[in-house]
């Protein structure tokens, strides 16, 4: 016979796991924030914006891509550094989402993931993720 203590242990385990999931959820949650907010956070965030024309440069030796995002509404800008190969069609991107952590030392968002939206004549936009 399953006794009361068994149920209790089960419930406690479930609650523990719920707590564990909640903390994992909080740790991995990357909120969409304006640039000013991103500069204050010490946690991974995501910022979106358009690519400032002519702002991108690729340093082959270190393999890092630098560019400036522009917030189309406010006109704010944010420098982004992405360690990795330059995504295809990068220059044509109409909107870029960068996920990463702000580095106050260089005033750059160090992105570990980019989401590039390119114009397409197909329904909506083509998107591709780069890790």
């Amino acid at each position, binding site marked *: 016979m399953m006794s009361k203590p068994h149920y209790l242990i089960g419930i406690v385990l*479930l609650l523990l*796991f719920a707590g564990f999931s909640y903390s994992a*959820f909080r740790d991995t949650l990357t*909120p969409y924030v304006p640039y000013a907010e991103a500069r204050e956070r010490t946690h991974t965030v995501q910022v979106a914006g358009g690519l400032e024309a002519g702002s991108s440069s690729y340093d082959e030796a270190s393999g890092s891509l630098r560019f400036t995002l522009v917030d189309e509404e406010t006109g704010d800008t944010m420098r982004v550094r992405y360690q990795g190969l330059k995504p295809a069609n990068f220059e044509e991107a109409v909107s870029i989402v960068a996920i990463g952590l702000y580095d106050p030392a260089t005033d750059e968002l160090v992105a570990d993931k980019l989401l590039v939206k390119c114009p397409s004549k197909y329904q909506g936009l*083509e998107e591709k993720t780069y890790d």
Partner: protein
Amino acid sequence: MLQALDHLYLPGALTLWCAVFFGLATLWGYAQSLHGDAGARTFARRGYFFFTISVVLCAFVLWLALVRRDFRIEYVYQFSGLELPVHYQLAAFWAGQKGSFLVWLFWGALIGLPLMKSAGRDEARVMSVYVLTLFGLLFILVRENPFVMLDETPLDGAGLNPLLQDDWMVIHPPIMFVGYALGAVPFSFAIAALWQRDVSRWATRAFPWALAGFMILGTAILMGGYWAYKTLGWGGYWGWDPVENASLIPWLFGVVLIHGLYLERTRGRYRRINLVLASAVFLSVLYSTYLTRSGVLADFSVHSFVELGISEWLVLMQVAFLGMSVYLIASRWKQIETRPNEDVFLSRGAFLVFSTITVTVCAVVIAAGTSAPLLTAWREHPGQVGPSFYNRTNLPLALLLGFLLSVVPFLTWKGTTLRELLRKLLPAAVVAATATGVAAAAGVDDLFHLFFVFLAVLALTTNLQKTVARWRNRGMGAGGGYLAHVGVGVMLIGILASSAYDKSAKLTIEQGKPTQIDDLTITFKRYIPRQGREKERLEVEVTRADGFRHVAYPKLFVNDRTRQLMAHPDVKTLPLMDLYISPIQYDPGEPPEVEYAFDLKPGESARAGDLTIRFAGFDLQGMGGDATARLASGQSVTVGARLEVSRDGETTEVAPVFVLDPSGRFDTPPVALPGGALAALASIDPTRGTARIELAGVDAPLPAPKLSLDVTRKPLIQLVWGGLYVILLGGLLSTVHRLRDARRVDRIADRLAARQS
């Protein structure tokens, strides 16, 4: 009203309205037949038959419009084009939202026919609920009619997204929608049973349907993963993308449901919970559809769909069906007799319950992660969770499942003593310990991972022992469940090995220069231009000191019409791993600097470095007679220059060309000369009769092309696919087994009924 009709393609719209009409007739007929009117039941059956014909015709009309490339119809215009090959017209069918809802409805309608038979005496209620679920889809199609016409007829369609021009795209989505459509079947059985206040029969009948849904949705998920891995070049088979999760969540609830139904069928337990689970499967299908199709995740998903104004309707559908099941389950809860829980702790019943709870938690956690943008919508800055959330939360659950799976086969319903259990587990534990030792020797260094391997092999072995025992004693079908669990064990090993021990390197290499990654030597040999239907390819040679050699041909090409860069990886399956080579970027190098330029008349020669160039004469074969007339008729004109190039006393003939197209643009593709230089026919001066020959790379070497690529070694990834195949095979055996069981139970019930009357 009539004006609105002008914008609809009538043959198609008509079939939709017919479907609505016959659907309503079916509902009316079944409502009448509830009072025992056999004539009304015949009427309802015919109604449903005509409903199905209408839906099938509707799909046929859209397909025909696509094949005929009838660009008056907006949907055809959006997803088809003159250049699209016929077999991809099928992919165009489900490339958009409207078409995919139609495919879903198409399968839903067809599934209703065998369902009618399988529902037996509960036909009227089951079919009423089922038709109601189909109405949800039908209304979406009526609102967002796929047969809307454009004001003007375009000459050509927009074309199908090149990502979707793939054989997998032809087959993967329709199978997915069979799975989705099957999700409504156990729900209909459950709701009908609650409605009738008799929940004694539905589980047996719904069981094979739930298994079939589990199998088909599983197949679709397998195909989706395979497609992402082999063709799309995502780097893996699973990325925890919302669209992937959207199919996984209902599938996991389906897994819980089939175990719940097993408990009910064999032990009479879970009679209430199974009703909840059957609803959960269907509601999670609706919720997933809402998440991925309504645009709520638009900013967060890799392949999100554009909002189509159906989100309110999808919300309404969810609320209505949720309300229906909550009300019915709550109001009947007390009346449902269920066997009291008499299981001791170390018993099969108790452990099956633990397993179902674990898988439920899995599904809930994944659903919560996928819904993160909605769950945090109230905050100032909504966010999303990345793959690490899913990996972190699912790892302990996978470990727990591995343990439960290992133990269940040797537990009995009555309960087992710990001593006896351990004794039975001993042979499997020896196998698992050996495998763990092998894993440690092969380089698995993390204790946690070793524990994972131990549990996975233990689960595999105990279930295999039991499968064989079942096959011997009770036939193939009875072993299906255990066989599926063998597959789970195999898959867990594959997932761990290929994701935690993959070795990935992103590198940029110059043509011809071998580069070393661990024990592999990678050389970019050459770029192969497009040849007919064969896309641009890159030749990459991979060698190893032990004599292994593989020439990979990954593809990297710009789609002509979209200027979109697309990569197709090359996947080489070796005995213990996959070698995955995906191009990222091809850089042909800076345009070469022109070192020499000569204006030559036919017969004249010039010297450039160690080369002697003699202009032998023009090649006018590509002119096609009158060049002006040819240009006027929209064709391009090609002029060639025959050059005799001598180097170290050897003479070769080359013919660079000058191509002029009607729009006035010209192209001067260079040709290779002996010694690695390039020559191009840059222009022609018709008045003086000279050709301008430009040379590059004669004195200084040409800039070498560079290739950026991702070289990944994924150990034992074949076990992921292999394990899934075994799971699906087990599912198939169980489906057949449970179908026989349902028929047998029906026969007994019929005999009893006959005896009573």
